[in-house]
């Protein structure tokens, strides 16, 4: 039966995160961006909402609720607060979610209970690779079997919280089969080098770094899912849906800010929102935010039905990328000269929105 109403539990979660977004994340976002640092207390409060522990299976102490729809709703609200902080808070789930979905019993038992801690554990994942021609479907990082162990070689980019991570999930292509797998790698293992912090156009508060893997040797038991491996296309579909949800959150914040600004900004004797040139821009922004959100919901719902969502997720992400750029650019336009000034949030939102075409390899679930 067609319905566009979240469950009561989902609505409660939305309300909690929205309050956090408005009361804490939005007010802190400018300073976080300028200072290139997510405030520790916000990271902690965000973690305490419990998004990651929720997806841990019940038998390991979590709630066992890995729903793409719930995640999409939650992520939109987090990004509505601040994208950098959202990605910071979600970084440990880049490790936990694939282990939950595809890990062997031993891997799940070893790692997942760590995510029930009150403090976010130092875990993250590395999928994206440097260069102008990144293709999530054809990774250049390789995994080669050598006796009882696996040898990893390659270079990764945009690894969130890599500098403080103890353990990473590294995505690599099996040089024999061509399949993409995920490998558990300790950052202090020989051959692993975490590079300097990357300097990016947007999401500046989030710490990301390059990662070099030079003949890194891990045990065969470090391959997620063992011989079966992971369902990489499904993982990409989840990741694209989640990223698109974050893009909707960024766009929504830009739309709401521009709408409120336009109602208060008086020129020629009346609020500029009363001019069709501005009002129509705002109307289109509202339509695009909703359109992108509905595509995200449909892709997420398809995932929760256990069906192949490759196409839906891809279309949702393509759409949300463009919509978030369009909406944030319009928001800067509505603010005119002020839109160009960093003190006003819309210029940051435009920089953040532009990143979604790049983030295809963040592997958020």
């Amino acid at each position, binding site marked *: 039966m067609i319905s566009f109403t*979240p469950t009561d539990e989902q609505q409660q979660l939305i309300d909690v995160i929205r309050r956090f977004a408005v009361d804490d994340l939005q007010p802190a976002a400018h300073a976080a961006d300028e200072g290139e640092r997510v405030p520790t207390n916000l990271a902690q409060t965000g973690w305490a909402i419990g998004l990651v522990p929720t997806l841990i299976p019940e038998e390991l102490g979590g709630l066992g609720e890995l729903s793409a729809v719930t995640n999409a709703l939650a992520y939109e609200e987090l990004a509505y607060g601040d994208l950098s902080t959202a990605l910071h808070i979600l970084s440990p789930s880049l490790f936990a979610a694939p282990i939950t979905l595809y890990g062997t019993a031993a891997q799940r038992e070893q790692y997942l209970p760590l995510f029930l801690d009150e403090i976010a554990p130092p875990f993250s994942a590395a999928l994206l690779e440097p260069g*102008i021609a990144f293709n999530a479907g054809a990774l250049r990082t390789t995994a080669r079997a050598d006796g009882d162990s696996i040898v990893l070689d390659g270079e990764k980019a945009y690894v969130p919280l890599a500098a403080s991570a103890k353990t990473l999930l590294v995505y690599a292509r099996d040089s024999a089969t061509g399949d993409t797998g995920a490998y558990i790698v300790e950052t202090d293992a020989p051959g692993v080098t975490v590079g300097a912090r990357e300097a990016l156009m947007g999401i500046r508060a989030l710490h990301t770094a390059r990662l070099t893997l030079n003949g890194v040797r891990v045990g065969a038991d470090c391959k997620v899912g063992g011989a079966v491996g992971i369902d990489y296309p499904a993982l990409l579909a989840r990741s694209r849906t989640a990223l698109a949800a974050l893009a909707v959150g960024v766009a929504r914040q830009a739309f709401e800010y521009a709408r409120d600004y336009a109602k208060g900004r008086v020129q020629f004797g009346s609020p500029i929102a009363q001019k069709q040139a501005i009002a129509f821009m705002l*109307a289109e922004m509202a339509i695009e935010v909703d359109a992108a959100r509905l595509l995200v919901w449909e892709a997420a719902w398809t995932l929760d039905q256990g069906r192949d969502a490759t196409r839906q997720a891809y*279309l949702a992400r393509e759409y949300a990328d463009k919509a978030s750029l369009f909406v944030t650019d319009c928001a800067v336009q509505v603010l005119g000269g002020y839109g160009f000034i960093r003190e006003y949030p819309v210029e940051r939102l435009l920089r953040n929105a532009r990143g979604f075409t790049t983030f295809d390899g963040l592997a958020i679930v």
Partner: protein
Amino acid sequence: MAIDFTIPDNLGSQMQMIEMVAEHMMRPVSRELDEHEHTRPTTFFENTWGLMRDMQKRNLDKLDAPDTGRKRDGAGITNLRLMLMIEMLSWGDAGVYLCLPGGGLGGAAIEAVGTVDQKKKYLTRFAEGDTPSWGAMAMTEPGAGSDTSAIQTTARFDDATQEWVINGEKIFCTNGKLALDESDGLVVVWASIDRAAGRAGMRPFIVEAGTPGVRVTKTEIKHGIRASDTAAIVFEDARIPADAILGSAEVQTGAGSGGFKGAMATFDATRPLVAASALGIGRASLEFLIAKLKENGIEIPYGAPYHTLTAIQRDVIEMEAELRATYLLTLRAISMLDHGQSNSLEASMAKAKAGKIVTRIGQKTVALLGASGYSREWLAEKWMRDAKINDLYEGTGQINTLIVARRILNYSSRELS
């Protein structure tokens, strides 16, 4: 509740039936009816009248059924069924869909605001008989397009005969000729009962075929949807019964201008249905384009990074995402109707988006098909022409954008005009 995109099973099988109609009764006559404007799709009439008549009969029968306090038909899927049906029929042929027998927009207005007696009196013609009847809506005038407050047509009550007397001229009335000249149908006509009261004085009246003083003076020659007739109608002292007014005859100014606002609310129901028709045309274009590209060795890789895509692949992916987004905006507006929620904002969002996107898809499809796309041998060029009407009627894209703007800004029509 939970977010859910499941189409009920029984609707799925009904749509398979409609698809057969679209594929076998509409597509084969599509080109012929486009080349010869105003030729009637008689086989289509014969094959769909029974279905439409029985649907109308079920609606009328419900008027006498005891109120059980809960909705029949599952949890309300009336509008969802209509949306899917219209999408599918428009995929077949939008012009032919528009002349689907039955009450149409006129019937919808009576359903929305008519009394039980009015429904029985005026809608029964759409629920019985062997020959089809049509209902139409006449709002637009030469000097009153989107600005309905400029309507010049008048309705004067004649106390002596207890009749309303209608005078004026209406244009752009879809199915006006089918309703008045070619069947025992009716037209819902918008007229002012008090010119000084402006919009508050505007009321819809039911005018039946055969009413003296009512003449169809013209059917337009059009860019697209050429199977459908778009009529001009003149009313000269047309006398209709006292009960032919929809809503109250009292003029109230200010916030409670009931009749007008109530009837305008029917747009909240019809706008998503226009979007549904647009969606059908858009899908016809896009499916055809993808099939032709495939014949020429061009596949669409879902999941490939942007830098590996050709310009054509990028266009198709963008068109597909836009069409799906429009479908979902429409589905939301429709679902809200079925749940009894107010949907003015969402209805106008869907309509504005649908008109724009489907126009673009139609035009892009012709371009990507090259010389063959421009040829009248294929239907792509016809779909492009058919698509454009969706950005014009039931409120232009701009009027619907204006409605969206007022809603999101919480402005009255005075504050944002």
